[in-house]
Structures are given as C-alpha cells and as structure tokens.
C-alpha cells in the first residue's frame, strides 16, 4: 500500500519549493487546500471530523498552549485537503484559551481556507451566532446543519433552504452520526474553495485589500462594552434568521427530558451518580485486574525463560537477573498501566459523549465549589482513586487554565488504587483488628482534608478564582458511538505509553541495580541496604529509619514497589515475615505518620510526567512535587507532635 501521508508530504514540499520560486518572481503562489472545522461544543463537530477523514486524526498541541489540535486528510475532487479541527467554542470573543486559538486560526486563514461551521439545529440560536461571527471575517463559509432529527423531536422544524437564504450562505443538512449528507457537504466546500480561488486570482489587489481591511476591523480587540453590544446585536439578527427558518411544531417531552427527571433528581440523581461511578470503577480498575495480572504473568514467564536460557548458555547469573527483573520488569511496569487505562478512557469518553458527564458536574458543583473547585472536575477527582494518570487527563474538560491547574495540583493527594493497596496491607500490619479500620478511615478523611486545605491555600495565593462564570451546557443524551469513545481512548493510551516508557524503564533498571548488585551479594549487603543506612538521616526528623525512607524513595517509580522494597529490606530482620518485622520496628504513632506521609508524598513517576504534559510546563510539575513533599512532611510532623502531646509513644 502506498503511504498517503508521505505522498502528501512530498506534495507539500514541492508546493513550498514552488511557492519560494514564485514569490521571487512575484506571482501568487498556489496554496494547499485547507478547510477549518468550527462549531459549538457538543454540536457533533468531532463526529463529523471522523466522518470526513475516516477517523485518522493527527494530534498535536496548538503552538504555546495545551489545547489539542487535530488535523486530518481527505480527498475532494481528486485533490488532497487538510482538515483542521478547531476547539469547540461559542464565540470568537477571545475569553478562553480555546477561543483565542480558534479566533486566531480563523482570522489567519480567512481568505485562504474554507470554514465549515457545524450548526446544531436543536440549539440553533447559539450555533447561528457563531455562524454570523465567522461569516463576518471569513469569505468562504459553509454551514453543516446537524441534528435536525433532535430539533424535530424538541418541537422545531428547521428549513435548510430558508436558513440558507436568510444567512446568504450555503447550508447543507447532515447527519454526522450516519454520514448522511456528508458527500453534499464536501461538494459545497469544494465549490466554496473554487470560488475563493477565483476571487483571489481575479482581483488579487482589490479583493485582498478589502479582505485585509475587514480582517483588521474584526481582528481588533473589542472593549468589554463593545463586545457586549455586538453580541446583543448579533443575537437580534440570530432571532430574525431563526424566525425565517424555524417552524414550531407540537412537542412532547423528549427522551432527554424524561431521563433528566431522574438523572437530575435532588435525591435519585445522586444515587444514580454513585452507581455510575461505581460501575466505572468496577469495570476499569477491578475487571481489568485479571488482564493486568495476565500481562505480568506472561512477562514473568518470559523472564524466567530468559534467565534459564542465560544460565544454560553459561552466562553469569546477574545477566539473567538483569533480563528478568530489570528489563522485562521495566516493560511490565509500563504495560501494567495499559489494560485499565484502555478501559478507563473508553468509559470516560463514552460518558462524555453520552451527555451524562455534564449532568454529573451539575449535581456536585455546589460541593466542589465549596472547596474552591468545580463540578466539571469532580469526575477527574473521583477517578483519581483509581489512578492519578487518567484523572489528570480528565481535567481537560475544565475550560479555564487556572482551574485546571488547581485540580491537577490537588489530585495527587488522593490515593490511587496502588497506594490504597499498599496502605491497606500496611495499616493491617501496624493496626491489627478493628483499629485498622479506624486508622484507614482516618487516612481517607485526612486526604480529603488536605485536598480542601491545599485548594484553599492555592486559591488565596497562586490561583485566585476568576470572575468569569463557568457555564455548563447540558447536551441532549445520545448513545455514544464506538468511534467517538474508542478512537480517543486509544489515542490517550498511545500518548501515555510513548511518553512514559523511557522513564519507567530506566527507573526500574536503577531499582534493580540497587537491589541486585553487587552481583552475588546477599540482600542485606546489596547497594539498596547500604543506601538505606545512608539515607536514614533524611528520616530522622520523623523518627523513620533508613529502610522506610528508602521504601518511600523507591515508591516514586511506582507506588506498588514500596511493598516489594520493604519486603527485601525487612526480609532478613526476623521471624514472622517482613510485615511483622516492620510492624514491630516502629511505634503505632510513627507507623500512622509513615502511612500518612506515604499517602501524601510525591506522586509516582508516571503521574509527574503526565502532570508535566498536562500543565504544559516542567515548573508546575516541579512545584507539584515540592508541594506534596512539603505537605507530607508537615502532616507527618504534625501527627507525631500532636500524638506525642496526647501521650502516645513515639
């Protein structure tokens, strides 16, 4: 099969060369055909993008931002077309990062690209406002009128022909979900492109001059009052257009309204929310466990086999250990994430696509607002108990960058599945019987308290709340499509693996080297054990010995390795196994402080790398690491001091 990407890249390069040559001799360069896709959030823009491009989406960030830029290719009239998916927006008023980006892209490309505006017939007025705004600055606009069926069910019949006449723009009815009308949309966009080229070639001077003047007017920053007045005018015009194209028909309660009677019920709504969250956890983090285990087992067997192979070939024993525990262990550490990340992201995208996520945000907004967070961040926070990595990615639903960072900084204080597992085992060791449940409950409350306290602190210092409201639109429910759920999920997982594997592999190799070298030494003589003696001084203020400090350090690679490290370090300490040895080596008070510190201190490597990616800056990631170290240290010290005051032994 020939590679379409390489082919078009080659074409691009040729085009660039031609353009360079032509600009030297002063002729207008032929430009690559480009279409921009614009639309309100939830108007079906992504679905249409997938329809047009066959789902192939190259993802990058817009320069200097964390906003995702999706591009794809399609063939129209035998020529390749680049389709750029702009962020979902309500207006070109540059209030949010997404809007600034969309505004800039439309302004820059106006006159060179066709702008396809996806309009939602069921929420026509907001869509039309965006259409009018885009049409002010772009000469080639085609409206894709989506969701006509939903509009009909909600009691309004939209006439595409009348709409086209009232707007003075081509309007193509489409059903993005089934692909109906997409061919006609492509034909109309082609026609608009030809028209644009003809205008450009014909009156190069005049038209270009006129356009740039228009762009100058539209591109200027409006004062707040002007922006408000223009919006008011625009919506008056929207009402006129809608009046010409919309006929009210008899309406009955739509399925969405009927579902919302339960989903947004003041009591049952919360019951349903708990059930949905429980379902997500069950499927993503519990049902995926056998898969993760199977992957681990397969790698373990492969490792054993490799070690035996090395031994049979007469190689040194450390080489076998290196292959099994170092190399394949590292691969396993990366792959262990994959099963539940795939399932989790599919469920998350499906919930988002179905429209339920917006309801969940509305239900819990008051609660989240009380501690300085936002309802939209709730799902991310709740799923942090499964794994912090997807939780950080899930904060993307928040439009405001400052809110997003506030959520991302407190998520690591919520213990993930791995940390919860270690905490359960260690709590049971330190506090046998019923006291264990009490201690564990205390730890969970402590983590929530820390989240509230840290948010309050951030809101008063680095990340004050903005005055702008966070408005949530609740789209009608619909059954999520496989394409909309699975494609982005696989993309997330691929992105995660490609950025994490190096770090995790090296870190696992380092851990292996520490615990297995020098070759042939007993565990007590390994570098790890020696290092434990050296790092002991770090733990002194909290009455922790070197072995506990080292366990915390190794937990940075992956939180679940803490138990393994403790087992190695305490393995030879006495009868009853490492856990009993550990429990008898410290007082319950210090044990509890250790558990609290383990729960709160620096999140794992994968989380830090994701944090860096999601905040778009290494500085925020570093700040997060220091913040959690500081909070953990402070909390540990407080627990011990207060405990000692209350008369417990250190």
């Amino acid at each position, binding site marked *: 099969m020939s590679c379409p990407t390489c082919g078009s890249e080659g074409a691009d390069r040729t085009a660039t060369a031609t353009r360079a040559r032509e600009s030297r001799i002063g002729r207008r360069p032929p430009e690559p055909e480009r279409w921009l896709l614009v639309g309100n959030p939830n108007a079906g823009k992504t679905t249409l993008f997938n329809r047009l491009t066959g789902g192939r989406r190259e993802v990058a960030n817009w320069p200097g931002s964390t906003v995702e830029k999706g591009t794809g290719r399609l063939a129209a009239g035998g020529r390749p077309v680049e389709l750029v998916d702009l962020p979902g927006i*309500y*207006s070109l*008023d540059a*209030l949010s990062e997404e809007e600034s980006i969309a505004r800039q892209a439309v302004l820059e490309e106006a006159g060179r690209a066709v702008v396809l505006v996806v309009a939602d017939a*069921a*929420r*026509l*007025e*907001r869509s039309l*406002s965006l259409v009018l705004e885009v049409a002010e600055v772009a000469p080639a606009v085609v409206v894709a009128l989506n969701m006509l069926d939903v509009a009909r069910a*909600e009691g*309004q019949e939209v006439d595409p022909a009348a709409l086209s006449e009232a707007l003075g723009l081509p309007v193509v009815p489409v059903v993005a979900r089934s692909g109906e009308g997409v061919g006609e949309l492509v034909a109309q966009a082609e026609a608009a492109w030809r028209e644009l080229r003809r205008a450009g070639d014909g009156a190069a001077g005049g038209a270009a001059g006129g356009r740039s003047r228009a762009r100058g007017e539209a591109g200027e920053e409006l004062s*707040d*009052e002007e*922006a*408000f007045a223009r*919006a*008011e005018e625009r*919506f*008056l015009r*929207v*009402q006129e257009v809608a009046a010409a194209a919309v006929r009210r028909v008899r309406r009955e309660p739509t399925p*969405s309204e009927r579902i*919302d009677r339960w989903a*947004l*019920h*003041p*009591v049952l709504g919360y019951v349903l929310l708990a059930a949905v969250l429980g379902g997500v956890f069950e499927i993503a983090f519990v049902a995926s466990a056998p898969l993760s285990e199977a992957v681990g087992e397969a790698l373990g067997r492969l490792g054993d086999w490799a070690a035996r192979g090395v031994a049979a070939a007469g190689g040194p024993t450390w080489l076998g250990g290196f292959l099994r525990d170092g190399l394949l262990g590292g691969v396993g550490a990366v792959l262990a994430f994959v099963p539940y990340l795939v399932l989790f992201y599919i469920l998350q995208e499906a919930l988002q696509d179905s429209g339920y996520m*917006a309801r969940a*945000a*509305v*239900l819990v*907004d*008051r609660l989240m*607002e009380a501690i300085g967070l936002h*309802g939209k961040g709730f799902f991310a926070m709740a799923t942090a108990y499964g794994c912090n990595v997807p939780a950080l990615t899930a904060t993307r639903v928040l439009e405001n960058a400052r809110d997003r960072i506030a959520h991302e900084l407190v998520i690591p204080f919520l213990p993930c599945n791995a940390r919860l597992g270690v905490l359960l085992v260690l709590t049971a060791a330190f506090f046998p019987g019923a006291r264990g449940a009490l201690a564990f409950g205390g730890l969970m409350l402590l983590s929530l308290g820390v989240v509230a306290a840290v948010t309050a602190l951030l809101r008063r210092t680095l990340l004050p709340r*903005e*005055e*702008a*409201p*966070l*408005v*949530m*639109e*609740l*789209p009608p429910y619909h059954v999520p499509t496989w394409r909309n759920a699975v494609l982005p999920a696989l993309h997330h997982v691929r992105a995660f693996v490609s950025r994490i594997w190096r770090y995790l592999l090296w870190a696992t190799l380092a851990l292996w080297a520490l615990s297995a070298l020098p070759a042939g030494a007993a565990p007590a003589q390994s570098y790890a054990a020696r290092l434990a003696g050296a790092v002991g001084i770090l733990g002194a203020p909290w009455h922790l010995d070197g072995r506990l400090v080292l366990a915390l350090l190794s937990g940075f690679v992956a939180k679940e390795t803490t138990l393994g490290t403790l087992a190695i370090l305490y393995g030879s300490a006495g009868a009853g196994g490492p856990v009993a040895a550990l429990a008898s080596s410290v007082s319950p008070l210090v044990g509890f402080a250790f558990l609290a510190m383990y729960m709160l201190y620096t999140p794992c490597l994968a989380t830090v790398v994701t944090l860096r990616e999601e905040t778009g800056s290494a500085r925020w990631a570093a700040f997060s690491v220091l913040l959690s170290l500081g909070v953990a240290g402070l909390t540990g010290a407080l627990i011990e001091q207060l405990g000692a005051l209350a008369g417990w032994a250190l």
Partner: protein
Amino acid sequence: MRVVLIGARGDLARFGRTWARSQGRGGDRRSETWVRRGAEDGTAPPTRPQERSRAEGSRSLAGLAGGEEARVVGVQGGPALRRRLAALGIVPGAVARCRGGMPLGGPLLLEIRGALTALRRRDAAMVRVAVNVEEATAGAAPLPPAPDGVGVDEP
C-alpha cells in the same frame, strides 16, 4: 390567566420557591396569593400590567422558580461575566425558562436559546429579568389602562 408557576412540578419547583423566599424575593409568594384568591372567589388574578411590570422587572434570573419563564432585560456584573454570558446569548431579549435547581444552592438549570444550561446562582443573580414575557416584549409601548373594578390591589 397569569399563573406564574406554570407546571410547577415536584421537588425542584418547591425547592426553587423556598429558596427564592429565603432570598427575600416576594414575587413568588405574591403570585401564589393571586392563584389562591382566583381559585377562592372565582375572579381572575389582577390585571394591572404597569404595576406588575415594574415590580417584576426588578427580579433576577436566580429568583425564578421551576417552570417559570422570563425575558432578560439587563445583565449586571463585571466585564468578564457579561462577555461570557453574552457569548452564550444571555443578553437582553433572550427568553429563559427555569427547570429548577440543584439542592443546597447548587446551579440553576435554565432553558435558554434552546439549550439546557446550568448557571451558578451567584452568576444568575446578575441577570435581571421580567417574568411576564409579553409585557417585557412590549417594552416602552403604552399599556392599556386597567378597567376600573377589575384589578385587585395588593393588600
């Protein structure tokens, strides 16, 4: 017949009324009085548009009860809030229908510009509305004088 609590249904509407009252907005209580009186003595509720228009024109979007419909007459608040709301079509002339609110002072659900939109009460309080949609549309147009003896004055 001017029953303000159109289709007031279930807990959401009840909650909205309770909340509006706790905020010191009397509009709902008064309209309930009208409804009761109309039901008792068989007369229609008062029809003195000027008076009601003035009184209700001062209400805010946050004071709407479930099922109530109102027309936006003004948006207050800071510039960022006004621009954000304007981008969503929450400008004078927009019609909003309240679908209730979340418990404990959570967001209000509003049908506005054809879309179900959740707005925090604090933000919704910045939007001034006139509850009787036809009157607000009439705007400054002279209103017909109320026929004597039909209007029932507020006690």
